[in-house]
């Protein structure tokens, strides 16, 4: 079956999510949202009723009734298993920068800010970094500003952190403070990944191709996930799945 890049990325991310209790997805994140809903559909099929999915951009898909702090309290309670973060810059140590480019005293570029990253990166067990733009501009040797560090000293309380980085070209896993190239997406090459990555990473002797989404996965995404998604990301759902908000 043919598939589009968004479907591939969502499938990769759903595999990374695995069997967990609660996935939370930030605003303006249609591909992670697709992946989380896909993981939920898989859970339904297996009869395990997991994961619970919170789409923070959508009141209909969040249960919060204790104000803006509830997301962070919930994470602090160990009740969020998977979250997604990105960065204007991401470096080879897993550090992310959501603040600025250039010296702190006189930045050249200002990004919106760190949001909840300087907390959630530490307390959510599986943080999946997602940045479609895979370039030496975004994937750098050392970030200019550490919004949140990839790793911490052993005595620092940390129950969470990055487990992977998904880009438009490949999938990196993250462990022991380093990225490792796990697979290259169909149509891309290891050489291309090396050329466009600003940081050093581990590279096994043989790097496979990211597996295409199975027909079952594509069917779930298109038939079960897409209609649900259309209520939250109508434009995305229309473009990727050809589904309108009231198409169900």
């Amino acid at each position, binding site marked *: 079956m043919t598939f589009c890049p968004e479907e591939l990325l969502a499938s990769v991310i759903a595999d990374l999510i695995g069997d967990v209790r609660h996935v939370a997805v930030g605003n303006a994140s249609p591909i992670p949202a697709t992946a989380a809903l896909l993981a939920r559909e898989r859970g339904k099929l297996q009869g395990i009723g997991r994961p619970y999915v919170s789409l923070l951009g959508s009141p209909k898909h969040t249960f919060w009734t204790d104000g*803006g702090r509830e997301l962070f309290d919930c994470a602090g309670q160990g009740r969020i298993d998977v979250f997604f973060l990105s960065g204007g810059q991401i470096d080879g140590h897993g550090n992310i920068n959501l603040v600025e480019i250039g010296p*702190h005293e006189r930045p050249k570029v*200002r990004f919106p*800010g760190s*949001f909840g990253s300087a*907390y959630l990166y530490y307390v959510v067990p599986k943080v999946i970094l997602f940045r479609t733009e895979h370039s030496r501009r975004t994937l750098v040797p050392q970030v200019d500003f550490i919004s*949140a560090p990839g790793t*911490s000293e052993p005595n620092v*309380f940390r129950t969470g952190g990055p487990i992977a980085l998904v880009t438009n070209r490949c999938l990196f896993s993250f462990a022991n403070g380093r990225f490792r190239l796990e697979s290259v997406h169909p149509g891309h090459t290891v050489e291309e990944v090396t050329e466009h990555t600003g940081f050093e990473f581990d590279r096994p002797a043989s790097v496979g191709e990211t597996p295409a989404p199975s027909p079952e996965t594509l069917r779930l995404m298109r038939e079960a996930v897409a209609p649900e998604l259309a209520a939250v990301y109508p434009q995305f759902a229309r473009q990727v799945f050809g589904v309108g908000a009231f198409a169900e």
Partner: protein
Amino acid sequence: MFQIAKPLDEALAPVTDGSMLVVPREVAGAPMAATRALIRRGVKRLHLVALPTSSLQADLMIGAGCVATLETSAVSLGEFGPAPRFSAAITGQTISMKDATCPALHAGLQAAEKGVPFMPLRGLIGSDVLKYRDDWKVIDNPFGNSDPIVLLPAIKPDVALIHAPMADRFGNVWIGRQRELATMVHAAARTVATVEKIHDGNLLDDSVLAAGTLPGFYVESIAIAERGCWPLGLPDRYAADAEHLALYAKMAATAEGFAEYLDRYVYEKKAA
């Protein structure tokens, strides 16, 4: 303690030059009509705390020269792109920026709400967010073993400025599930609220409405501002005006365009 439904400018009297002013994030209802009124009045040197992020509201106040210090976790126009006046103010060094992370702002206001000098928070250690905050401290957790933990000082705003769906004639304000508004108000010395409408009867007399009500005891003044979040939305009431926000993003990209925006949409129009 309060006078219901003052004229907007009068209700905003507590927001004086140099005040520490706390405002909520867009999804909790950004008081935009009040923001425009403050800009028209020419309020200056605010220490603006946006809990925990902001969009148009902070960008507009920064661009209009109302803000000396900004304390928040992020400013962005969301799907309409970066916040242009915020970015320009940072790169042009015209405001002092206290970068935070969302739960740190919630915790700082909860500390003030509880009358304690600080609140601990996990995370942060090893980040540059912490590095550049001289007012945050790291101690060894007395209940741990060589376990560093960050302590955040209480954030005690002079004024909380909020918008809500309704208030009653007793000054009670219905905030629904936007409970950070209650924490902001408890933490602040004084509170100004704008509301869509006045509710007949006492909100506290109905056990269902009371669950979402901020008691008038905490509220200094209230003004009616219909569609008071425009061009942003108010949850469960009205959506953001996407066309206008796109226009803002375009005009505010340059200082000249922003000045024209102010002329056209803030100084000229007296109400929403």
